[in-house]
């Protein structure tokens, strides 16, 4: 039986959407993650899409994905009796992860200092929009607010469109990843020193590094980077750079750049496919054979050449567009890559499910779900650890599925659990 990296660690999961990816990563690495859900319902269970489009607390696909390997306890920690039970649980825990407005846990008497008194050495990981202090600490946040405030949204999309929010709550994802890394860093420190601490993750800060070079560009050159579609920093439309239509979708191409095969290899391929048109003929051939970033830099240094070259580049782009439009996106992707030509498929979710590489590596896995009487397909983990592998131990819990089990483990007699239940606290 393979070991797991966090099998001795208990995590109490109070996280909303902002932090649930953090506790997922910890659960999948083997921690005993106990998710505390409010007896009136966990808002995460209400987010679609749902399994078979059936709206129910046990069917949110996002919930299923993020909460496998966790246990669920329904508990109202704002009620004194619920709080007392929570404190007993804290006394057995190593980590608490939460995403409330800063100061909320303090107002319940459950802030970092209180938790550390109950369980010396505990780690409290707080994941919020703007962090625990500073003038915006109490601002309301959601994914798009953090993404906008980080700067990365200003770079995404076409100039003609509003700034694009990346799909899939990437603010929550990035904050969740940093929350998990921060928790593990604090845990390592605790293992070495015995000392716990408060881990403070700001979604805004977690996202800022995604600005790529925009921040340094302003620092050095006082220039504000903006949206350029798929051209990146290249100021004009070039043949073979950007999004091109296949006959059933799109591909992303980055030809004539280091790391991939040069244009002569592309031209040979176009010729073999009977789609080269007049690119071997003068005056096109000289540009087509030599086109790369160095060629373009040289052209910019000799502006007199630009008027002659630009129409050829535009024509090459048209020919290359016609070439791409003749084939399927999968053919273009796999055939190009056999020749080290830098083309990537623009995958739809269906393409992701059918991706030959992911499937050959057995990355997706199908798991039995008793309550659905069906198997559900899951994506695998972001990483493979040879000695402490991520494993799917059990499906996401039903609401309160482990309430009795967990409360009994911390020494609450069944009669106490029953009275909490009848009071609506569990």
């Amino acid at each position: 039986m393979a070991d797991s990296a966090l099998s001795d660690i208990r995590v109490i999961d109070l996280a909303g959407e902002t932090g649930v990816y953090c506790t997922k990563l910890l659960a999948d690495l083997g921690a005993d993650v106990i998710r505390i859900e409010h007896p009136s319902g966990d808002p995460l269970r209400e987010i679609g899409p749902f399994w078979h489009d059936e709206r129910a607390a046990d069917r949110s696909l996002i919930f299923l994905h993020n909460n496998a390997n966790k246990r669920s306890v329904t508990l109202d920690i704002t009620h004194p009796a619920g709080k007392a039970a929570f404190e007993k649980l804290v006394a057995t825990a190593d980590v608490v992860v939460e995403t409330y407005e800063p100061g909320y846990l303090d107002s319940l008497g459950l802030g970092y200092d209180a938790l550390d008194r109950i369980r010396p050495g505990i780690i409290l990981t707080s994941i919020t929009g703007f962090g625990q202090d500073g003038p915006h600490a109490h601002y309301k946040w959601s994914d798009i607010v953090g993404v906008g405030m980080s700067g990365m949204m200003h770079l995404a999309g076409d100039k003609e469109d509003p700034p694009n929010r990346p799909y899939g709550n990437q603010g929550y994802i990035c904050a969740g990843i940093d929350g998990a890394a921060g928790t593990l860093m604090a845990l390592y420190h605790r293992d070495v020193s015995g000392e716990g601490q408060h881990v403070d993750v700001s979604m805004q800060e977690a996202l800022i590094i995604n600005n790529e070079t925009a921040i340094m560009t302003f620092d050095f050159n006082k220039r504000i980077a903006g949206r350029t579609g798929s051209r990146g920093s290249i100021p004009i439309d070039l043949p073979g750079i950007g999004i091109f239509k296949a006959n059933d979708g799109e591909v992303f191409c980055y030809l004539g750049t280091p790391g991939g095969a040069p244009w002569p290899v592309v031209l040979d391929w176009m010729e073999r496919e009977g789609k080269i048109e007049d690119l071997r003929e003068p005056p096109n051939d000289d540009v087509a054979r030599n086109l790369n970033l160095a060629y373009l830099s040289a052209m910019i240094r000799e502006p007199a050449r630009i008027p002659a070259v630009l129409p050829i580049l535009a024509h090459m782009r048209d020919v290359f567009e016609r070439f791409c439009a003749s084939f399927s996106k999968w053919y273009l992707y796999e055939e190009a890559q056999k020749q080290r030509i830098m083309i990537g498929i623009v995958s739809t979710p269906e393409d992701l499910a059918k991706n030959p590489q992911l499937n050959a590596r057995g990355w997706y896995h199908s798991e039995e779900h008793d309550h659905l009487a069906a198997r559900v397909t899951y994506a695998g983990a972001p990483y493979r650890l040879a000695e402490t592998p991520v494993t799917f131990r059990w499906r996401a819990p039903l609401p309160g599925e482990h309430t009795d089990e967990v409360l009994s483990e911390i020494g609450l007699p069944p009669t106490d659990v029953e009275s909490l239940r009848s009071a609506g606290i569990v």
Partner: protein
Amino acid sequence: MANVKLPLEGIKVADFSWFGAGPICAENLGRFGATVVRVESESHIDGLRQVGPFPEGKTGYNVSGYFNNYNAGKFSLTLNLNIPRARDMALKLVAWADVFITNHTPRILERWGLLYDDIVKVNPQIIAAYQPMQGLEGPHKYFVGFGAVLNAITGYNYLSGFPHRPPVGLGTNYPDYVINPGHTLVAILAALRHKRRTGKGQKIELAQVESVVATLAPAVMDYTENGRVQMRKGNRISYAAPHGAFRCQDATWDNQPLDRWVTIAVFNDDQWAGLVRAMGSPAWASGAKFATFEARKENEDELEAKITEWTRERTPEELMPLLQSHGVPAGIVQHSKDVLEDEHLKARGYFEYLDHPETGRSVYDGAPFKLSKTPGSLKTPAPLLGQHNDYVCKEILGMSDEEIAEALIEQALY
């Protein structure tokens, strides 16, 4: 804070990575106390040293803000791994290290003899983190690409942006900066913990395609479970309305027009009531057309147009605090200048400024998380190419002056 012992003090990292995904991860190990030696070479130069931004009037390998931002706090050792002597030196460095990290392709790693089976022979307890784009095995393992190609392959392009527009992506090599280095950091820290408990190292493989698709898994499940192929929807989401970026008064910068935007996200009726109050309770907002979430979703085009009429006359700097004061999640779509001048970020001390011998004082991204007792920091600016060859050869690899001279003559140190 000088006497605080950082979590990773004593941990040694051999950083054989380049570009973003590897170096950022190693930089964060260093930030929290590890000793990091970055291995690079002019014979196989890190592309980020060649592309800017550069300070005004400066060029060269040592002044790229792109490179420097991901390599602060490291020692630089230049090894030309095409030379056998350099490969021997690389293995000595691996023998010294607790953690090895690389995002080179399997093709290069085979050539250099740095696959797990090669390095585990010299260091059986090594934690070896590989970040190949497609994986070390599988039919696509030799495929070429970088962050922007990965955006397309993994679904970000298809799913982000507006449905009537081509899938242009996110404007950056997005997965290189948090998704891949961050996941790798999680995996390495888990492995370090395991090593501390058991003495055992291990091989970590983060196939970048897997690491990225893991963050989009619900869209794949919507296909596998429901047969639905989701399409990009601009800035809208299924459980909020309005939800998007709204155009504000234009500004200018450097004599150029600059478009300005505010994000607004309304998830419930209380937030809607707050937005209506913030707008001064206009008549259009009081009708049945927008009274419920379902109604707002139904009439979202009109809703967005009406809100834009209001935001277009105002600045985002004025709208954000106004909307927040009414309990509405809202923020400026900040650009780089805004972010650098953001008073909140300044109060929290997010950015770090370091004095670099060639660029002068310049900005570096701060910590991905704040630890209350062991906050960590970048101790030195990014190294010049090969700046620490002598130090690393002598102090870490234990080489004599004569051996160093031979390595230089053979261009192993290059």
